[in-house]
């Protein structure tokens, strides 16, 4: 049962071959048995899940059911869930129980998806390894000595291990795509503004975007419409119709122009990853696509610009965690200053503090122009690069991450090396474009991800390319040993 895709589960539920309660119980058992090895969940909401499953079964019987009704999923613990603790991987919010649902949660509930629980993540989504969580590091099911990537590492590991068929993630600089790549699952970061950020705990507001993570592109195509769409509570969400992405999945790739950016294949790329990506590109050619060489000359500026913009916004977004109204408050403060400094000192982990410091510095009087404004100019250059590239290409393809999953602790003390894990994904966020990662091969038994970058609102095309690729390959169907 746990090796089935959302599409298959949906079919089985509608055919009455299985009930949602049976499915949910099976997944809960699996989580109980296997997650101690992975630590991919922060909270498992057993009772709520069973209640929702019973409601879903009633909907299925009454004929009032959609494709996700009764399907068990998990939410990254960055999405607020009414009545269920939402920690964002931080001690600061260890006791925080939101009185509201994020729009994504609300919409997926309305679609009938059943929430198994909340997945582990880097604290406040700041990280590329899911090691910075207050709840301990997440392990990669392909090798539990290795990281699953991050920050949506809990969601990626849970999907890869068959603990859930689908999960939500968020992506600020690669946090859906990089863990998808490292765990061998499919993940989609939509166009900025496609998915509402209401109730999604902010890291860097101008970059954050929620999206689906599952085994297949088809499953992402089922999940995305239940997450996306205009939301009047998010001024940056975009009023634009959300298509039924399943419609275009099977379109042939004949004549598709695939852009290959020189900058994606230069120094720093792991040989095994490079080889697997080349193979995958060959496969796309066999499916009818043509490749064109393109250039993204400002690529090398993406990581530095990101590490100004994202911490700057984060330093301000995280100012609300002051111990005054909710969240962690230091015991017996002697005065206001003591309450602030100890509450924040105790509530936040090292990486979060580092980024708050960097961001505060970048916004300070005298440095603002040199850092923040300059970074905004770089963003425009990067967007320009992509605009020109999409004159020549329909989709840009390359590696998602420069390497495969690294060992737990390997990069934990070297933030810059860690930041370079997102070297290929970050530019996409800076430009606000949609991007995907799909399993495209293996290197030394570890998954390799292929990144697909599309033009604004061209999620349909990405899903189509990914789906055709997955029809022709079986990388997405591989199961990590021990999690069969």
């Amino acid at each position, binding site marked *: 049962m746990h090796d089935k895709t959302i599409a298959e589960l949906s079919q089985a539920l509608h055919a009455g071959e299985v009930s949602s309660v049976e499915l949910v119980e099976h997944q809960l058992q699996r989580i109980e048995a296997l997650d101690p090895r992975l630590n991919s969940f922060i909270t498992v909401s057993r009772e709520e899940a069973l209640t929702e499953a019973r409601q879903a079964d009633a909907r299925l019987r009454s004929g009032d059911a959609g494709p996700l009704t009764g399907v068990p999923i998990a939410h990254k613990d960055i999405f607020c869930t009414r009545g269920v603790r939402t920690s964002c991987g931080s001690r600061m919010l260890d006791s925080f129980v939101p*009185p509201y649902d994020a729009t994504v949660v609300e919409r997926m509930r309305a679609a009938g998806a059943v929430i198994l629980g909340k997945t582990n993540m880097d604290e406040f989504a700041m990280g590329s390894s899911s090691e910075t969580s207050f709840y301990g590091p997440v392990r990669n099911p392909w090798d539990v000595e290795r990281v699953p990537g991050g920050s949506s590492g809990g969601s990626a590991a849970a999907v890869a291990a068959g603990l859930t068929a689908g999960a939500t993630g968020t992506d600020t600089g690669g946090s859906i795509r990089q863990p998808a790549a490292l765990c061998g699952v499919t993940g989609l970061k939509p166009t900025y503004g496609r998915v509402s950020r209401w109730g999604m705990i902010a890291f860097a507001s101008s970059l954050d975007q929620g999206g689906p993570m599952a085994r297949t592109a088809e499953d992402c195509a089922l999940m995305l419409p239940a997450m996306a769409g205009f939301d009047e509570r998010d*001024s940056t969400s975009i009023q634009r119709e959300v298509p039924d992405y399943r419609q275009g999945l099977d379109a042939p790739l004949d004549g598709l122009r695939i852009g290959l950016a020189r900058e994606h294949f230069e120094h720093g790329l792991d040989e095994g990853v490079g080889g697997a990506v080349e193979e995958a590109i060959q496969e796309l050619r066999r499916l009818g696509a043509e490749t064109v060489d393109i250039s993204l000359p400002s690529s090398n500026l993406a990581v530095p610009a990101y590490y100004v913009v994202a911490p700057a916004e984060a330093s*301000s977004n995280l100012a609300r965690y002051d111990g005054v109204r909710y969240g962690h408050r230091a015991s017996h403060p002697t005065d206001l200053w003591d309450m602030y400094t100890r509450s924040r000192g105790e509530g936040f982990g090292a990486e979060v503090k580092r980024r708050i410091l960097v961001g505060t510095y970048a916004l300070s009087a005298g440095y603002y122009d040199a850092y923040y404004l300059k970074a905004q100019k770089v963003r425009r250059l990067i967007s320009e690069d992509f605009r020109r590239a999409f004159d020549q290409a329909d989709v840009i393809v390359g590696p998602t991450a420069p390497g495969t999953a690294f060992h737990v602790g390997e990069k934990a003390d070297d933030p810059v090396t860690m930041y370079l894990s997102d070297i290929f994904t970050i530019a996409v966020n800076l430009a606000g474009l949609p991007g995907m990662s799909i399993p495209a091969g293996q290197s030394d038994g570890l998954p390799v991800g292929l990144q697909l970058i599309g033009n604004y609102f061209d999620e349909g095309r990405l899903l189509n390319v990914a789906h055709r690729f997955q029809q022709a390959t079986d990388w997405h169907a591989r199961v990590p040993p021990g999690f069969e």
Partner: protein
Amino acid sequence: MEWEPVIGLEIHAQLSTRSKIFSGASTAYGAPPNTQASAVDLAMPGVLPVLNEGAVRMAVKFGLAIGARLAGQSVFARKNYFYPDLPKGYQISQYELPVISQGHLEIELEDGPGKTVGITRAHLEEDAGKSLHEDFHGMTGIDLNRAGTPLLEIVSEPDLRSAVEAVAYMKKLHTLVRYLEICDGNMQEGNFRCDANVSVRPQGQHDFGTRTEIKNLNSFRFVERAIDYEIARQIDILESGGRVVQETRLFDVDRGETRTMRSKEEAHDYRYFPDPDLLPVHVDEAFIESVRTTLPELPDEKKHRFMTHYGLSAYDASVLTATRAMGDYYEAVVDACGGHSKLAANWVMGELSGALNREGFDVAQSPVSAEALGGLLRRIEDSTISGKIGKDVFEAMWAGEGDADAVIEQKGLKQITDTGAIEAMVDEVIAENPKQVEQYQAGKDKLLGFFVGQVMKRSQGKANPAQVNELLVRKLKG
């Protein structure tokens, strides 16, 4: 040395929107603490601001009224600082691109000509909550009902040269925002408050002196006293060879002096940057035109019209146009009394304003409607009653005893114009006061007043004074 003060004001006007600037919570004043604070106002994790279009509409209305430049695109920024009643750890405000810039306001000064005061900018921002220190032993309570209330911060040029000018400007602005119905002007509740930037320089010097900023002045009187104190303090320092320190000061109402709040070195670095949760605000021609159609007649226009159309003095016209409601009331009285604009002005400014002040009422709360007052004035004009009796009738009307005609009828106050009846009373008075008659006839003309008074008393004030006068003169000379 002669010193010239240089003053600029920053005025915070709370906009009268029903809901907050970035959330749907109510802005009503006086609710129990934290009952009007939504998840957005509390800055819960993951919540987002959504701009209230009504606040932009009001800002644009203000911009049109002061002949300002309206930004096609304005931007909300975050002003970052920690304070317990600032839930997000930043205030959403406008920084580099405000919605309004380059406006001006004409002010009048009692002694001398008026002047034009430049308005540098006016921008939208949200208010913070309140810290309550009294009721919690060893702790501070936080009330976030006010958090997110929309404010328009109106920043003047340093065009003001005295505390009197500053107050005239502030009063003019106070009148204007109430005319526009964008702010209720309630200063006790802090809905219209002011920070004053004050410096002095030697008369004739071009460059400004070092300024200080006096925070949170919430009455016209405090503005005047604080600025006067600060000017004197700075002159004292400079004349004794010292230097004014750039700093923020507070006005101590009880001691009538300003004192240091924080120095320039302690000033916050607010780390402003554009708020990524909000899109730039686009104000296009169509929007501006739709606001323009809601503009009322402005105070200056109305005052001018009252002078030319009703023949009022500049002073009377000012008083009667101080609020839109007062102007409307006056005009309704003029209509109802048959166009006797001077008489109407005297009564509205006299009896009516006196009664309103006595009760602490706004003109809208007057128990005597404009139509009812007009009815009373008609009875004075047509000699049914004298002006003096009119005051008694007004009091009865104020007490709810009915309209003018009902009160006159009920109390029998109708003026006696029957010559026979008046003549009888005149004869009686002459007969009863032979000594005074003798003196009068001997040339003591002033005694006429005594006789008139006696007759009026006898008639309980109802005799037509003109007739009484005429009969007395004739009979006494007789």
